[in-house]
């Protein structure tokens, strides 16, 4: 195999390294970006940082696809009679949006990018425990997700990301089986990443890095890895059963073949509810890093927050039934799942209270990452509490499968995960690239996203309570005004997404050089150069300080 031409890559990398030609640079070990220059060196890398960057580029591409589908959905819903697309096209569009955003953006987003890049550095390791396995997991991810993307875009699948049987097994006439195979395979990349992280956190911590000296982000990576390992195999099996039923007519879910469709809902949500915490926990981890730094103060109740992460990861396995209150589950199950879902609010509330207490009497800098963190707290609280509404049996009977649910989970997943992802991206950008991003543009887009997001999704709570069902291409005309409002909001939101792509790209070439620790942050990742050398640290670190080692008590006034 011949290595790809690297003249172009070389040019870009020279530009990255030498933005101001002629300035003298000190001779030292090259950083991970400049250690090797070819595209081939990127594709064969085992460096966790480079793999993190590969993930970052691929999930950004998938995000653009998913967001484009969302834009078309909002465009279609400007008119109530579904004149812009056919019903089948609309159904394929929301399937693309759901499949791509859930499996190829949200689930890998923070763990596979920041988890890969930052987590090993945070615990003072040279790499993850199994570097080649790490590379394998990226290849599995990219090939399976590109295959699925081809399936859902070229052929089209109209089942929605939930693949409910017997619609998916017997009645849909679209490319269901290839899409299922893609999603099954991509699950293995999650499993391998989870395995890798667990072993890394157990065995690769630097001398002195005890469990309770680990940053909360590492705790959430550990919690999320547990979910990857324990929940993903269940969806793998459930989707294999779907393939079996669709291809070989083995009756598992379709009553006409002797199966039970509610069984599929159970298996699906047994994974897909914990999957919500695959998306939410890493976001909480990122916020728990950003808030102390920009308050210059210790994280309040560190141990509570650490325990809450593990608590959430455990509790999340016992609440899947709340997706099925009106789906033919017994009244007793409904009562149990309802009260357990209320219990999930406790560890979530712990985190919110502790972030607020951390800000109190801090020394606040409202830079872009902190703006995202504060936006996150607000939107996550709204999303979480509307989740409690949905866990209330009689309310769910009305708003189940309506736009109320759509609004609720977008507050959690966009308001939560996506804002945390953007906050983390800005926070660690100097570490990733060695460049500073333009602060004013960063703040402007954070505001745009916050306003655009609320304008898009707040009207959907009203639509849902008024009774507009989800996945509706044609809707009653009395809902048009609120839908137009929501679609206009999505334009602002889109603008807020485009800005960071532009100015972050710009900063690669023109941004000011970043010092090792531009935020005056504590934590091992800020003790090494920006960008870090190939093996992360010039000298292996030893840890003899607690996490978030900011001032304990203000002595200067």
């Amino acid at each position, binding site marked *: 195999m011949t290595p790809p031409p690297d003249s172009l890559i070389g040019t870009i990398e020279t530009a990255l390294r030498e933005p101001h030609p002629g300035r003298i640079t000190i001779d030292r070990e090259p950083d991970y970006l400049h250690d090797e220059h070819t595209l081939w060196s990127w594709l064969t890398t085992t460096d966790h940082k480079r793999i993190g960057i590969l993930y970052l580029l691929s999930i950004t591409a998938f995000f653009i696809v998913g967001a484009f589908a969302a834009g078309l959905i909002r465009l279609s819903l400007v008119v109530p009679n*579904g004149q812009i697309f056919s*019903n*089948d096209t609309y*159904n394929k569009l929301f399937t693309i949006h759901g499949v791509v955003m859930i499996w190829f953006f949200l689930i890998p987003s923070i763990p596979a990018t920041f988890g890969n890049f930052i987590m090993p550095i945070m615990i003072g390791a040279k790499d993850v425990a199994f570097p080649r396995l790490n590379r394998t997991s990226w290849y599995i991810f990219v090939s399976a997700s590109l295959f699925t993307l081809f399936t859902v875009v070229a052929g089209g699948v*109209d089942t929605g990301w*939930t693949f409910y049987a*017997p*619609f998916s097994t017997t*009645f849909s006439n679209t490319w269901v089986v290839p899409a299922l195979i893609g999603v099954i395979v991509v699950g293995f990349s999650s499993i391998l990443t989870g395995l890798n992280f667990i072993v890394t956190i157990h065995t690769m911590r630097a001398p002195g890095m005890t469990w309770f000296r680990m940053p909360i982000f590492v705790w959430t990576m550990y919690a999320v890895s547990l979910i990857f390992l324990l929940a993903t195999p269940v969806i793998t099996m459930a989707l294999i059963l779907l393939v079996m039923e669709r291809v070989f007519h083995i009756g598992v879910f*379709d*009553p*006409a073949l*002797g199966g039970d*469709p509610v069984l599929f809902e159970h298996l699906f949500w047994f994974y897909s509810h914990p999957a919500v915490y695959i998306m939410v926990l890493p976001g909480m981890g990122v916020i728990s890093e950003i808030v102390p730094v920009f308050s*210059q103060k210790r994280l309040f*109740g560190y141990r*509570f927050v650490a325990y809450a992460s593990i608590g959430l990861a455990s509790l999340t396995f016992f609440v899947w039934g709340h997706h099925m209150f*009106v*789906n*033919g589950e017994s009244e007793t199950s409904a009562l149990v799942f*309802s009260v357990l879902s209320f219990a999930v*609010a*406790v560890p979530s*509330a712990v985190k919110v*209270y502790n972030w*607020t207490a951390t*800000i*109190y*009497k*801090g*020394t*606040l800098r*409202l830079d872009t990452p902190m703006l995202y963190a*504060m936006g996150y707290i*607000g939107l996550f*609280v709204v999303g979480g*509490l509307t989740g*409690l*509404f949905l866990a*209330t*049996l*009689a*309310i*769910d*009977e*009305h708003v189940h*499968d*309506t736009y109320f649910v759509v609004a609720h989970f977008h507050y959690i997943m966009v308001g939560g995960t996506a804002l945390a992802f953007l906050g983390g991206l800005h926070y660690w950008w100097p570490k990733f690239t060695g460049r500073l991003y333009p602060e004013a543009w960063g703040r402007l887009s954070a505001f745009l996203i916050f306003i655009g997001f609320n304008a898009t999704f707040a009207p959907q709570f009203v639509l849902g*309570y*008024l*009774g507009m*069902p*989800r*996945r509706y*291409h*044609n809707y009653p*005309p*009395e809902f048009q005004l609120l839908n137009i409002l929501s679609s206009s909001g999505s334009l602002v939101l889109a603008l807020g997404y485009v800005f960071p792509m532009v100015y972050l790209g710009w900063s690669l070439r023109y941004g000011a050089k970043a010092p090792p620790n531009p935020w005056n942050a504590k934590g091992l990742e800020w003790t090494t150069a920006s960008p870090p050398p190939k093996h992360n640290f010039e000298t292996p670190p030893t840890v003899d300080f607690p996490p978030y080692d900011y001032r304990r*008590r*203000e002595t200067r006034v």
Partner: protein
Amino acid sequence: MSGKDVNPGDFPLALWPPSASTEAVQSDHLILGFTVLTLLLTVPIFLAIAWFAVHFRAGKDVHREYSDKRNRLLEVSWMLVPFLLTLIFFYWGAKLFDIHKHPPADALRIEAIGRQWMWKFQHPGGQAEINDLHVPSGEPVMINMISQDVIHSLYLPALRVQMETLPGRYTQLWFTANRTGTFRLYCSEYCGTDHSRMGGLLTIMSPADYAQWLRQSGTSISLASQGRALFSSYGCSGCHGAGSAVRAPSLAGLYGSPVPMLAGGTVVADSGYIHDKILDPDRNLIAGYKQVMPAFKGVIPEDRIVLLTAYIKSLSPAGQDTQPGQAGPERTP
């Protein structure tokens, strides 16, 4: 939407949906009460964050000294008190849910069949309607539903209730409407191409108007009578009818009575049992009879099963189709 005679102006944009039952009003009170509680719990936090962000900004000369002492009681209470307060709403919601799950025995029973992409409703008197549903106000109405193909869900926003319509299994919802009017009716579980067109209008009428509507619409042959015709056209009567040569259980008085199972124990013969027995008689073999009945899966559609069930239900133990003393399943000597 079927929307034959609906103009956009008939359903003006509102910020709160109309309600048509006392339970619906209670659901509204529940969510409003919960909203008030969540506002009480969160607005102080949001205000605090905003105030801290301004007051403690870097560079401002403010008092930042604080004690490292932790108040565990305070920390535990700010977790537990809100949790216990929300449990009030768990209880309230569960109580309403419990009411929704137990229809009164005397409820007017309407059969609903969902299929891609229409609803069929059958009234006890045999009147059938597609997509639209007419019900009387002031009396409990129970909708017993089943799907012919994929999962659907019958959603009546004005009554704040919905229930999934499953293939192969009956599910129910019920309500007592307290006003008349016309409201929307939807399928809320995604079911394929024309999912968003699978709905119509729910018309709640005064009992007198409902009786009038029943008289005017369609057939006057009751569900049970229609079922009786099917009972012979599908050949059921050849074995299950009186004086048949084949030794099959008599169906008189079967509905609602316990049936002994081959595997031991008994099962109460309700709609679901009869449905399963017709479509797939090889499952759940009953004691005392050799299983010789053919399966009718794929032969009899769901709406006809409903008719057959109505007929079987109408066969009283002392009905004219059975001879005295032969009521219920026969036992092996």
